[in-house]
């Protein structure tokens, strides 16, 4: 049993006290004292408001916080919500908080939540980020209801976010996941998502847990697992995506978690993705992806400078990854002035595919392949920012869609490179 190996004695003891549950909300934490109290209170409010008759449990899997995160989770009691007259619990709302073994790792936290869901035989389970300060009680309903009613097995979120927020998602993670696996999931690497009890057992049986993606980048690995397993997918509009301080959101770390996990997934799923030629939309519940347009002060010059120096300094590394035509094209555009610079859809898609093939062939250390993509992504981000400076939400969405179609069109080139020599 998976849960026997991952759940600590303390976790098991608390879960056994709960018995069985209908719905579960998991909150993976590590030093989130600043925000977790508010998030857990909102989750409780959501459960009491929208699932008053169901047996509900909140599971906090903590990575060993040293800032009273666990105390705050335990302290966010029902009494804090008593000012709201329409919140009445008809069943006991359990709240569990325990530290998992092995030190802080999102993958281990998610695995703990999955094992808890399986042990408690829940019908629907949601995962909520402890940093989602914009969370509203409705998020819990929008995540859990489609699964609890038995209509879907896996629900990913849609957010309202700034048009320049999530550039890596728009320029690589979403288009490539869509091109590879044929499903138009806008947020394949989601901080909030939900799944059925059956899918939780499926996730636990996957081999990802013995690999690096079982520790970091697990979110996208689970999305891919749900797609490749043929489960029923949906997207649910939640609301405003909280702005994470980008100084903490290190680009290389973000690329390891998303691009590294995505490239890794290609290995075991080759027979599946290599035969898909197009993509299918995923049912959307509520509004679609929304963007906000308020002006931002962005240092585009720095992005361009880092791209240019990256292409020049990493030439020996890029030579071992890219084909000569792609590298020479990159070198050509890196010599252009800012005003003339354009890292177009075709070249960017070819670049990513050649990186994916080199990752597969392990021409150098795989982690180095992912790291070497970061400076090139900065060039693409620069082009995206310049092209969409004055664009409306619809115009920008159209550009993202065009790039997705380019990725799908050029996918055969990756299949060709996969088994051939560079």
């Amino acid at each position: 049993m998976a849960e026997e190996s991952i759940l600590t004695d303390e976790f098991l003891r608390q879960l056994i006290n709960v018995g069985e549950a209908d719905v579960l909300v998991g909150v993976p934490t590590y030093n989130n004292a600043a925000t977790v109290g508010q998030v857990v209170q909102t989750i409780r409010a959501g459960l009491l408001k929208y699932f008053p008759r169901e047996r509900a449990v909140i599971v906090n899997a903590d990575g060993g916080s040293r800032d009273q995160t666990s105390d705050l989770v335990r302290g966010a009691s029902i009494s804090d919500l008593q000012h709201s007259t329409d919140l009445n619990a008809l069943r006991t709302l359990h709240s569990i908080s325990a530290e998992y073994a092995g030190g802080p790792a999102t993958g281990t936290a998610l695995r703990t939540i999955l094992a808890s869901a399986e042990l408690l035989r829940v019908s629907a389970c949601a995962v909520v980020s402890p940093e989602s300060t914009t969370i509203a009680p409705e998020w819990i309903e929008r995540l859990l209801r489609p699964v609890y009613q038995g209509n879907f097995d896996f629900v990913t979120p849609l957010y309202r976010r700034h048009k320049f927020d999530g550039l890596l998602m728009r320029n690589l993670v979403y288009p490539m996941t869509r091109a590879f696996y044929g499903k138009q999931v806008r947020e394949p690497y989601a901080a909030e998502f939900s799944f059925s009890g059956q899918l939780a057992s499926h996730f636990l049986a996957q081999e990802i847990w013995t690999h690096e993606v079982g520790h970091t980048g697990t979110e996208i690995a689970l999305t891919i697992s749900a797609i490749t397993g043929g489960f029923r997918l949906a997207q649910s509009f939640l609301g405003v995506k909280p702005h994470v301080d980008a100084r903490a959101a290190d680009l290389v770390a973000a690329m390891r978690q998303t691009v590294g996990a995505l490239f890794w997934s290609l290995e075991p799923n080759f027979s599946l993705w290599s035969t898909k030629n197009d993509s299918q939309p995923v049912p959307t519940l509520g509004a679609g992806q929304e963007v906000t347009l308020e002006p931002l002060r962005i240092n585009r010059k720095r992005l361009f400078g880092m791209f240019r120096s990256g292409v020049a300094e990493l030439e020996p590394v890029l030579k071992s990854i890219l084909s000569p035509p792609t590298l020479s094209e990159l070198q050509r555009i890196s010599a252009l002035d800012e005003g003339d610079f354009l890292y177009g859809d075709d070249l960017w898609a070819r670049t990513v595919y050649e990186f994916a093939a080199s990752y597969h062939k392990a021409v150098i250390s795989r982690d180095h392949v992912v790291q070497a993509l970061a400076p090139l992504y900065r060039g693409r981000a620069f082009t995206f920012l310049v092209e969409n400076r004055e664009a409306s939400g619809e115009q920008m969405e159209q550009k993202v869609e065009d790039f997705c179609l380019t990725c799908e069109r050029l996918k055969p080139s990756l299949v060709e490179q996969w088994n051939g020599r560079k």
Partner: protein
Amino acid sequence: MREMIVNELTQATQELVREFARFLPRLMVMLIVVLVGWVIAYVVKWILRSFLRLIKFDKLSEGAGATQLLNKAALPSSTELVSRFAFWTAWLGFILVGVSALGILGMQEYVTRFFVFLPRLLVALIFLFIGLLAASFFSRAALLWAVNTNMPSPRLLSSAARVLITVFTASAVFEELGLADSTMLLAFAIVLGAVMLGLAIAFGLGGQDLARRFLEARFAPEKKEGQEREDELSPL
């Protein structure tokens, strides 16, 4: 007088023939040992090469960065290199055993020395291989880190990492081979000291601004008076 000369010549010739008759079987033994050794070494090479191909050793070597090193040095693939090394080591061993069968005075001692030295040679070669791989890996890691953190002179940093690890590897290899221990130790200390001093001076004089910027960014990220803070973009 003439008879004496004839007798001496006859005796010398007979002695030579006897010596040759005694030597000939040893020579044949040596040739047989060398020939059989070649066959055995060839079989060892073939088995090893097949095994390495089976476990995709070349792919492992590519991933570790060894292939690029070998390509740069115009050497064959890792599988071929290891197989050839095994062949030559095995055959050289047989050649020396064969030569010792000739019974040449003093040769036995050299053969014994060779077999005592062989494990140290192997260990030294393993040190060299791992050291060069580590130098390649860490210099590339330093390069990528420097580029992604926008550090100045990433290649200088990368080269410094490579030189340091290579120097350390060379000292470990010579130490293992027991070649001029004290000279190598002294040379290593001088080179390392020079590199460290050079780096200290370079960073001390040239890196003041960099160090100040780094420390400011690390410990005092708040915006300065009159300076507008830029909005940060979240990649995900």
